């Protein structure tokens, strides 16, 4: 075990090279719907229990199924209304289980990125070869079902190994060269994209995916009232919009169709989307678009600035 993660360097938020988004936007805004499949009877993982009860864990399974049966369409209708294309963090087994949802995402040119096979299969305890196989399966599934060269990763149920990012980058290179496997959503250390070092030396970055704004964290961990979630989202946006005048920022709303789309909660998301999309300086983007723009225009400058400031230079 390592004392520190060691995949990115300390890089202070102040005085960074100016980040410029297309058309002078201040905030690159993206919505990342997690579309997940949880198994009713998952195999045991020695390091983490999938459900608090013995299988069948009806309460936990059923509400997540609600997300796909009922919630997804509500959320999709809202994103359509505000001209937002989702960047889907996908349990890729959903391509087999619920291809109708995948088709709707494709028709809208939504991005699909890997969130593992099932959200009840954890990375913990996997050998490197096993994790590589799982990552490859996921990227190949997305490609087979949608033709997309998977660019991003959010580890299943946020379960990681020390090698997760390396393996994702490597499998991406093997399958798609530089066109796949180049950003991660697993790091929560910044409000701007940052370079991340991976074993194969690839140009690889982190795209901010906020756990603080993540509906599941908000509703189930922090137990926030629905209408207050709307307030939090607006405040979060306001500050990033203000700071974005100086240098571009990223705001992500990670969602789960079984949380945001409940009838007593969906208004909070709608209010926030209405508010955010009502601002001129907002770039409605996907995770991949943000990553590609950053890699093309800002990655090299960032690497140089990080190198320059490593020793404490102002």
């Amino acid at each position, binding site marked *: 075990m390592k004392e520190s993660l060691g995949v990115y360097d300390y890089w202070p938020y102040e005085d960074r090279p100016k980040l410029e988004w297309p058309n002078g936007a201040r905030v690159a805004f993206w919505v990342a719907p997690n579309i997940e499949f949880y198994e009713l009877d998952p195999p045991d993982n020695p390091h983490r229990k999938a459900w608090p009860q*013995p299988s069948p*864990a009806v309460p936990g399974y059923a509400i997540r199924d609600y997300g796909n049966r009922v919630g997804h369409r509500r959320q999709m209708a809202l994103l359509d209304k505000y001209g937002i294309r989702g960047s889907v963090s996908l349990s890729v087994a959903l391509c*087999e289980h619920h291809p109708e949802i995948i088709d709707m995402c494709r028709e809208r040119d939504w991005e699909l990125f890997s969130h593992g096979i099932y959200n009840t299969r954890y990375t913990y305890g*996997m050998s490197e070869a096993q994790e590589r196989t799982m990552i490859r399966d996921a990227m190949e599934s997305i490609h087979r079902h949608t033709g997309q060269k998977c660019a991003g990763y959010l580890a299943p149920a946020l379960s990681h190994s020390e090698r997760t990012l390396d393996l994702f980058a490597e499998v991406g290179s093997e399958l798609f060269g530089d066109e796949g496997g180049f950003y991660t959503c697993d790091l929560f250390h910044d409000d701007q994209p940052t370079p991340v070092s991976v074993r194969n030396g690839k140009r690889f970055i982190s795209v901010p995916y906020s756990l603080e704004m993540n509906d599941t964290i908000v*509703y189930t961990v922090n*137990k926030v009232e*629905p209408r207050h979630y709307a307030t939090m989202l607006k405040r979060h946006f306001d500050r990033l919009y203000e700071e974005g005048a100086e240098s571009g920022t990223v705001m992500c709303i990670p969602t789960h169709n079984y949380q945001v789309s*409940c*009838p007593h*909660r969906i208004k909070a998301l709608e209010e926030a989307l209405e508010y955010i999309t009502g601002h001129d300086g907002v770039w409605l983007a996907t995770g991949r678009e943000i990553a590609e723009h950053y890699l093309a225009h800002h990655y090299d400058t960032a690497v140089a600035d990080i190198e320059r400031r490593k020793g404490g230079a102002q």
Partner: protein
Amino acid sequence: MSLDDRYFEYPWRRHGYDHDRYDWTMLADRPPVTWPGGKRLAVWVNLSLEFYPLNQRGEPFKVPNGMKMPYPDLRHFTLRDYGNRVGVFRCLKAFDRYGVRPTVAINSQLARDTPYLTRRLLERDTELLCHGWNMDHLHYGGQDPREEREQVKRSLDTLNQLAGRPVRGWLSPARNQSWHTPDLLAEHGVEYCADWVNDDMPYPFRTDHGPLTMMPLPTEIEDQFVIGQNLHSEDSWVEQVQDAVDFLAGEAAEQGGRMLGLSLHPWLIGQPHRIACLEAVLEQLSRRDDVWLATAGEILDAFNTQTRSER
């Protein structure tokens, strides 16, 4: 370090679900259902009457809202008992005031041991759901099948006998089930179950003994979840129910009838400082002309009459 090969096998990775209990369909794609009188949203108010034993076994887990302290946990035992002695009558008064007929999910042991309460409910012609034996008699994966069969049978026989008629609905304690629970329910004459919270409409559910109808009774909006577990204010709960009703009625206008089961616990909402919030919710519901306030059985009948003739 590595995991067993089985961890990388996906035997159920196929179209539909990883089980055969019900079909995969998205709510938005189903033929619209219409409710009597052209109402948009069918609402059933469920009151859960529960007995939490002091000598809780916690098998295979401690039921939410059960005993938490070392034995004897007088604190939680009596607070829950408060609901059946005091809170329930405050709730019934509130229902009467706004003309709402609740459906009552009751533990069969409680129905047997509190004859006054059971008689009061039956006098009011209340629709009863069987809520299992008591809150410490969970149904769960790995449970001895003979034990569970006896538990289901005893719960239903007891309540049927007290009610003088077969009970139509079932709500498992903590909504937990074994792999066999739905089969046992259908075998013993249950028509609908409220355990699976995966829809905003009733839907057909397969068992070894013919179809059950699943009537989802959502956890996420119920009093004990919003106020008790999430610690939201009572006023916020009122707003949340209002937001849910507004949204579902709006969706129904475009897509066909919707259903909301609103589950209540008298030990929580029946407290003097909270009851006005229940009244506010009931008042709003009773004023809306797009809401059909019905019992679960009435909604079940309207749904099945319509969808079975279309099938």
